[in-house]
């Protein structure tokens, strides 16, 4: 079996499982946030449940409309706060956590080999730690909170094998955009995407999280990377009792629906142009695109490694007049570290605005929205029509390095070319 099948077999008490088989899996962790949580809480009450099945396995995080931008959002937050208190579950309030997908692994709620579901599509991020993790809706999250179980159709797996060393300022974000560009937004629909190969092996946890985070953008049920010493290094001190990683490696004779090969050694920075995540081009082919906003942050690229990279590009330069540059650390922990490392100074000196840890403009619900006719280059994950504000606005997805370089010049810019300019 491959790693996804192994985890689902164990979670459903079976020796083996096969793609297409429907299993009833025990859930190790369920997460809800301020936009999907209120519906889940309502559904939980309607089901008639008094208490969650296991209060150690439910996590509530406020991260989308944070801090509350309206009375309506404040009411939703109040509902979530009360639910967390009544149920005595782990709760991250405003200022205590950050973006759910950063907070979950940071605070030790993600263990390799676990089945984790979250009422957010980017829950697949935790595949970076060798967990089976996938997004569900609110009602289903309520059902999991009541029963601790969920059904899954065991997915066929696509193996994405990656080799080569990245050039300077080419990143895991460029890799995953390239993969999605090749496979298409429905290229892995209903399937698992298992990322393997020497490039993945050498990749940091931050990079692995970026890669698995966007698996859903090609329709995948989950993205997953087998746990190794990089995984244990990150989880050390966060998760007690790490499991045996040997049992989580895909077998040599594991079956894959197909294997796709990628080589990053000659890859240049990639851009997903409006309004589909698979409309991906190397930056040299994008042409002259002026931008009004540059956003560095989100569950895809708001980690300390991303901020360091952006700061390296921006240091000593100024954000172009007419461009708003937004920097949003993915969590309080990342925020604190960026402060310690002096990154905040670099950003603010350059004329960027640094906001509190939250989802920010990524989903167009809170701060940093776009007006009609404006363009934004963003390190986030979706460029759909109306995603970040006006339906007449354009969103270009790229790496934090490309976003930073573009903020300086006011147009989509290859970060490797920025340095050579006088």
């Amino acid at each position, binding site marked *: 079996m491959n790693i996804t099948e192994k985890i689902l077999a164990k979670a459903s008490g079976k020796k083996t499982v096969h793609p297409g088989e429907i299993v009833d899996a025990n859930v190790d962790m369920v997460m809800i946030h301020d936009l999907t949580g*209120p519906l889940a809480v309502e559904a939980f009450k*309607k089901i008639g*449940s008094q208490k969650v099945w296991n209060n150690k396995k439910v996590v509530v995080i406020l991260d989308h409309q944070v801090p509350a931008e309206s009375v309506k959002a404040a009411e939703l937050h109040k509902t979530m706060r009360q639910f967390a208190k009544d149920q005595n579950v782990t709760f991250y309030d405003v200022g205590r956590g950050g973006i759910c997908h950063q907070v979950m692994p940071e605070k030790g709620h993600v263990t390799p080999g676990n089945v984790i579901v979250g009422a957010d599509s980017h829950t697949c991020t935790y595949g970076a730690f060798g967990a089976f993790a996938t997004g569900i809706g609110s009602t*289903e999250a309520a059902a999991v909170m009541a029963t601790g179980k969920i059904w899954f159709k065991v997915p066929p797996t696509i193996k994405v094998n990656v080799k080569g060393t990245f050039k300077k300022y080419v990143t895991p974000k460029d890799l995953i955009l390239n993969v999605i560009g090749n496979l298409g937004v*429905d290229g892995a629909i209903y399937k698992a995407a298992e990322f393997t190969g020497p490039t993945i092996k050498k990749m940091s946890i931050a990079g692995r999280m970026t890669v698995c985070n966007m698996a859903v953008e090609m329709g995948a049920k989950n993205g997953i990377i087998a746990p190794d010493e990089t995984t244990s290094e990150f989880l050390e001190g966060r998760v007690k009792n790490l499991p045996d990683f040997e049992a989580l490696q895909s077998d040599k004779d594991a079956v894959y629906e197909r294997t796709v090969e990628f080589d990053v050694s000659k890859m240049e920075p990639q851009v997903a142009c409006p309004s589909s995540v698979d409309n991906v081009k190397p930056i040299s082919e994008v042409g002259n695109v002026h931008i009004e906003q540059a956003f560095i942050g989100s569950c895809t690229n708001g980690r300390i490694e991303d901020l360091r990279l952006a700061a390296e590009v921006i240091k000593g330069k100024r954000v172009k007049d007419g461009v708003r540059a937004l920097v949003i650390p993915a969590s309080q922990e990342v925020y604190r570290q960026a402060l310690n490392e002096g990154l905040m100074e670099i950003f603010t000196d350059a004329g960027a605005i640094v906001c509190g840890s939250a989802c920010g403009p990524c989903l*167009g619900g809170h701060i940093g929205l776009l007006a009609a006719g404006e363009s934004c280059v963003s390190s986030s994950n*979706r460029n759909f029509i109306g995603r970040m504000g006006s339906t007449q606005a354009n969103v270009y997805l790229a790496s934090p390095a490309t976003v930073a370089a573009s903020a300086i010049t006011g147009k989509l810019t290859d970060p490797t070319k920025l340095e050579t300019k006088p």
Partner: protein
Amino acid sequence: MNSKIKASAIKFGNNIDTDVILPGKYLILVDPCELAKHALESLDTEFVNKAKKGVILVGGKNFGCGSSREQAPLALKYSGVKCVIAESFARIFFRNAINIGLPVIECKGISSAVETGDELVVDFEAGKIENASNGKKFQVEKLPQFILEILADGGLIENLKGKMKK
């Protein structure tokens, strides 16, 4: 859920994402009737008026891709959509629709066989879809029994309530 429905079709293309079905700025709304007022407005400002009478949505590939927001199928259901038929669905949307009692059917070839305004007849029990306007018929794979039961109960909440009483 009725085991058989008849309604006219409204057709959309491939990759209809949840941000166009219901933009993120409306997620702070809780009342499904309020959500419904904004269903698909980014693609068609008149959609809500057209859907009122009860319609069947026909989509291409990857219908409902993107966010896990259950508010997307909720907005469709409360705007008057009786059923969504598509070439394929994004999995979270598919599960969400079933869980809130909005029938969804995967049917290869449907988007080329239906135009907006065609009368469609759907028989869920038999797995049959007929386009009464042009006579084209489809036999689809029946959903597993436990999913049909969730739909018959009107969604996962009622289904689970029933189970927990036992």
